[in-house]
């Protein structure tokens, strides 16, 4: 009885998702045949045109690559510091005034829901091309993301933990310093490293809308159809991203899990100077701070910010801002329609990418993979796909299959597939080994274990990942529009080219509001499945 009902509900959900996807397909006038043939033709196109990568200008590219990483480092440092302040201002334990907490939250929501590329293109429009613009765009977007993440982690630190200090008469500052911050360190590190990984990718593509660095070069080479040159940079980018991820993973392992072992540090009859913390711990702390400072300043000097020019242009800003906020009501409906297009592209990309990821993850997860070497191959392939920012993908694909919705959807499928495969694999590998062993013992095959053993266990987790990805997928879809893949991004691009300030302002507002609604809705869905 119950079982039957559950099954009807499941198929109902599957059917409605299929209907929505079909509707998006017609709305976007996608060509299924073209989508299907896109992958092989894309691969052969790349194989023919991009190989071998040219090594002629490798020095120039290497310095651009360094610049990309340096911008990401500086941006992450600055946004991490800003976000900590904003997160504390949003935390109930620190800020007693509800109005302040809400105001900060609203501001952060605004920052977060404008994709980084839109920030960069807006700033480049106001201040002109330059490294300062790229850095600020990065900082704004990362601060939006980090502040919210930090705030969530801070609120998870139980108020109970801070009660002893409160009960002993300690002031708010001492409670933050000795109670809140130490407990927050692991989450802080985790979010910041994650944000750094994102920032490296973002920093690489910021140049595409005129913010300098690697992106400017990649775009120029692709548009000049100098594919072998472009290939060198794309390879470099892949390597940079992979190295960043490995480093971040190493730092996580090294520092997040230290001190979980119970080791006594003193012999019972200890004599000598008493300290709150052992000397070596203090030395490590001081050295870490020093190292961080050195890295920060080295990167800061390397990127050689064009501060003077930026400050010169600063006087322009109020005038441009005034024109931007002079909204154009006639553009609201067309803007919303174009956002719907962006949304539809994001949704189609997500669903197809999700289906591919679903299949790939069961073939690649360590604990269930039927062929080990195939699993390794899939994992490597996914890492590479994940490492290439979708803006780079689209410029490569445009060269192969032309611009438009088809190209955009192919890229969105690829990036959702890359992200979700990794997430799904992690979810499957977290499952208790007992499930699989027990079923193997009864003689069940791969398909039976997946369908009857793993699927029920991972379904909710998968759905949560998909809901989480929807926002990102739509944001990426908006971003792809900025180079001409259609949707609200393309509309924004046209308004920018025509110096149509009020339309630009209107469209950006539409993006913020729609993305915030989407985030809110996806959050609801996520809560139901977690």
């Amino acid at each position, binding site marked *: 009885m119950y079982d039957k009902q559950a099954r009807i509900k499941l198929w109902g959900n599957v059917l409605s998702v299929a209907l929505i996807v079909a509707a998006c397909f017609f709305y976007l006038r996608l060509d299924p045949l073209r989508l299907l043939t896109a992958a092989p033709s894309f691969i052969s196109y790349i194989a023919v045109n991009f190989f071998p990568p040219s090594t002629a200008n490798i020095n120039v590219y290497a310095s651009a690559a360094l610049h990309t990483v340096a911008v990401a480092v500086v941006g992450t440092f600055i946004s991490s510091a800003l976000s900590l302040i904003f997160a504390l201002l949003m935390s109930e334990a620190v800020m007693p005034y509800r109005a302040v907490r809400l105001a900060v939250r609203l501001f952060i929501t605004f920052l977060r829901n404008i994709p980084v590329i839109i920030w960069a293109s807006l700033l480049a429009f106001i201040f002109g091309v330059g490294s300062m613009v790229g850095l600020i765009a990065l900082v704004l977007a990362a601060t939006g993301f980090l502040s919210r993440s930090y705030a969530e982690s801070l609120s998870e630190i139980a108020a109970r933990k801070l009660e*002893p200090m409160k009960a002993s008469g300690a002031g708010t500052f001492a409670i933050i310093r000795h109670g809140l911050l130490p407990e927050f360190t692991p989450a802080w590190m985790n979010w910041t490293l994650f944000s750094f990984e994102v920032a490296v990718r973002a920093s690489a593509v910021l140049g595409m809308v005129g913010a300098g660095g690697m992106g400017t070069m990649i775009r120029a080479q692709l548009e000049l159809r100098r594919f072998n040159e472009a290939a060198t940079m794309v390879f470099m980018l892949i390597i940079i991203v992979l190295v960043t991820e490995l480093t971040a993973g190493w730092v996580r392992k090294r520092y997040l899990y230290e*001190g979980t072992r119970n080791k006594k540090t003193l012999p019972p009859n200890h004599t000598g100077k008493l300290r709150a913390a052992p000397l070596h711990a203090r030395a490590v702390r001081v050295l870490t701070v020093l190292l961080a400072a050195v890295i920060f300043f080295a990167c800061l000097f390397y990127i050689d910010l064009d501060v003077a020019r930026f400050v010169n242009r600063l006087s322009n800003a109020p005038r441009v801002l005034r024109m931007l906020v002079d909204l154009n009501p006639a553009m609201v409906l067309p803007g919303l329609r174009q956002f719907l297009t962006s949304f539809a592209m994001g949704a189609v990309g997500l669903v197809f990418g999700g289906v591919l990821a679903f299949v790939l993850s069961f073939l690649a997860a360590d604990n269930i993979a039927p062929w080990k070497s195939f699993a390794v191959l899939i994992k490597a392939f996914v890492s590479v796909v994940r490492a290439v920012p979708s803006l780079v993908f689209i410029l490569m694909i445009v060269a192969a299959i032309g611009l438009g919705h088809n190209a955009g959807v192919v890229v969105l499928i690829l990036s959702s597939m890359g992200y979700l495969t990794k997430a799904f694999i992690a979810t499957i590998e977290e499952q208790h080994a007992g499930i699989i062993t027990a079923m193997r013992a009864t003689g069940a095959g791969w398909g039976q274990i997946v369908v009857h053993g793993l699927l029920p266990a991972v379904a909710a987790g998968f759905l949560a990942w998909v809901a989480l990805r929807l926002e990102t997928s739509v944001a990426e879809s908006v971003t792809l529009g900025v180079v001409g893949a259609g949707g609200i991004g393309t509309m924004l691009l046209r308004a920018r080219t025509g110096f149509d300030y009020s339309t630009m302002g209107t469209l950006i507002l539409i993006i913020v509001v729609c993305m915030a609604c989407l985030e809110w809705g996806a959050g609801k869905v996520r809560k139901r499945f977690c």
Partner: protein
Amino acid sequence: MALLEIRGLVKHYTHPDTEVLHGVDLTVEEGEFVVIIGPSGSGKTTLIRCINRLINATAGEILFDGQPVNSLRGAKLRKLRTQIGMIFQDYNLIYRSNVMANVLHGRLGQMGFLRSALGLYSREELEAAHDLLVTVGLEEFMHVKAQTLSGGQMQRVGICRAMMQNPKLLLADEPISSLDPASAKVVLDQIKSLTEARGLTGIINLHQVEFAKAYASRIVGLRLGEIVFDGKPEELTDEMADYIYVR
């Protein structure tokens, strides 16, 4: 003059709308070791937290050392709290900090802004913390992260933290209910001997009648927000204990 005088204490919660304490009167003299017993929901936690104002009372009066507590705010409230140590059921240690730091946290309320912000503890404070750790037998764990300790060890750190304040009054809210019987006994022994050695006054919430009888100098029975028993441990009959715990 009594160290603590509570008169007609009423606590009314708004969510859900309930009155939990209906006019509690309690006077505690210096040096007493009072154990409050009572069933779950009888209001023990509420009562003990009204004393250091982690909860604000609805009506009634609390005098600590002759000073009215309920009207205190800001710096004066913090000053009051420095004189009252508290031990928590879930220890509430800062896991990422080491044992020594957790003990020293007890001093934060009594340090100047700069010194507390920078964590600059004086030589005397460090020595006092060390001596306390020796007393509870955790000296060798001094520089170990708090999260690696067992429950019983954590609560012993919690005791040291409260003692670091050099309080006049020690409050403890079910300090042993998350512990196994052996560690529970160690913890209670240490609370008792430290309060005695320093001539402190203690008010302890406990669930277990046997423990209350063994350690208390005076037992208070709370039932449905009213004090139904107040006397010496030997005066607490089995019938009385049953009555306190009957719903």
